[in-house]
């Protein structure tokens, strides 16, 4: 189903702005209320079922997390963290996946024209046929979400069920969520609902309850209600202040204009290789720290 260019807000590696006359488009958002999530993985199943994905049958590595990480076949996974403080145990369970940032680091890093699109409703979507498998979107993502599929060397991630949303339906994970912990609607409505939830949580003793809609990426179209909004890292390393990597900013701000006047591709290639590999390493280190 084609989307007219007027429904597109941004397009990777395309400095010319798409038409923006349809500015009245509703901005959508998915709200994940971590405090009512039971970690059942219905969203994982519904996502794979709707998107016709079947990951490998893996193995148990001593935790409930399965599949153990996001893959090209698993676009959302639950992250389980057992947190014990002052003798009180909490089992914090967070649904991980694409945050659909307003300022998408993946899109900004992507060198292939039109491989990453941001629609006017806020969804950030990959156009596989334009994807060249360079992996820069992974480097550009402050949440470490996209994954390359080894079989076709293309990057994949949650589409926020753009096919469903386009015809007026909620994403598959939202619809299936047994407890209603995942909600979908306009971003304004979701923020209002989140505010109610935060208020209610405060009456139950969660003084630091709050909404996770980080400014560093211009806000997100997937937001969390957290009991401990002051410490997002408790939730399996959810970044406290996510931001687009400075290297990607550099590329956007300085190098990309150079590219437009035809800078030698070989120079660029080395550069991209650096940012492709570098941040990945940094991410792994981050994870080690989280576990410690």
């Amino acid at each position, binding site marked *: *189903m*084609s*989307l*007219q*260019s007027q*429904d*597109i807000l941004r*397009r990777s*590696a*395309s*400095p*010319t702005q798409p038409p923006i006359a349809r500015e009245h488009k509703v901005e959508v958002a998915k709200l994940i209320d971590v405090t009512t999530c039971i970690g*059942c*993985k*219905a969203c*994982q*199943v*519904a996502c794979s*079922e*709707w998107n016709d994905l079947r990951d490998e049958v893996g193995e148990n590595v001593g935790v409930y997390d399965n599949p153990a990480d996001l893959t090209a076949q698993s676009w959302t996974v639950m992250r389980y963290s057992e947190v014990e403080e002052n003798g009180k145990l909490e089992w914090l369970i967070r649904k991980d996946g694409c945050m659909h940032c307003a300022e998408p680091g993946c899109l900004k890093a992507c*060198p*292939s*024209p*039109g491989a990453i*699109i941001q*629609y006017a409703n806020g969804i950030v*979507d990959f*156009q596989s046929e334009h994807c*060249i498998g*360079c992996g820069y979107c992974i480097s550009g993502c402050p949440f470490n979400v996209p994954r390359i599929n080894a079989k076709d060397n293309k990057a994949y991630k949650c*589409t926020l069920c*753009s*096919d*469903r949303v*386009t*015809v007026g339906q909620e994403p*598959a994970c939202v*619809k*299936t*969520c*047994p407890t*209603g912990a995942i909600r979908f609607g306009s971003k304004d409505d979701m923020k209002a609902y989140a505010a109610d939830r935060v208020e209610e949580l405060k009456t139950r003793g969660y003084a630091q309850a709050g909404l996770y809609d980080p400014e560093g990426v211009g806000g997100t179209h997937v937001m969390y209600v957290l009991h401990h909004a002051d410490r997002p890292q408790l939730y399996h390393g959810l970044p406290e202040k996510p931001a687009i990597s400075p290297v990607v900013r550099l590329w956007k701000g300085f190098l*990309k204009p150079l*590219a*437009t006047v*035809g*800078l030698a*591709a070989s120079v*660029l*290639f080395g550069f*991209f290789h650096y940012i492709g590999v570098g941040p990945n390493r940094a991410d792994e280190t981050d994870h080690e720290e989280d576990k410690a």
Partner: protein
Amino acid sequence: MQVNRRQFFKLCAGGMAGSTIAALGFMPEKALADVRNYKLLRATETRNTCPYCSVGCGILMYSLGDGAKNAKSEIFHIEGDPDHPVNRGALCPKGAGLVDFIHSPNRLKHPEVREAGSNEWKRISWEEAFERIARHMKADRDANFVEKNADGVTVNRWLTTGFLAASASSNEAGWLTHKFTRSLGMLAVDNQARV
């Protein structure tokens, strides 16, 4: 300069070159973004109830074909029934994966028998299956049926064959099971509620 999609990809074949070319203004004229086609548009929708736990969630099953006689139905997607008062469209991880239960590679397709001492299955016809099973039952029942107990009370029971009834079969199948087993005199009848 007119560039169609295919030519555009050729031009961009270097991958990296694409960004540069695009930036220079070599854009295909129809550079639209595509979302995946909505896959349920004319699929047949059938209402059913999840067969797993006792919440009894309403489900919508989508199958290939619009009901035309020449099309063979095949269920390819299941999601929750938003009208259902209990689940209101939701399904748990079991229910959300029902399509893989229906199409499990381990679904049985033909009657089979494993002969005494054998290490393999042998495919048989329904006729043979019914005949052989009935023959076993009759032999056992005729040999072991108890018409009267030691006190001479009519008891008409058959204790040497038992029946373990299902947990997800319909009431209708259950009722026929009841008629079947009790008319034969069976008392070792139980269902999953026991455990």
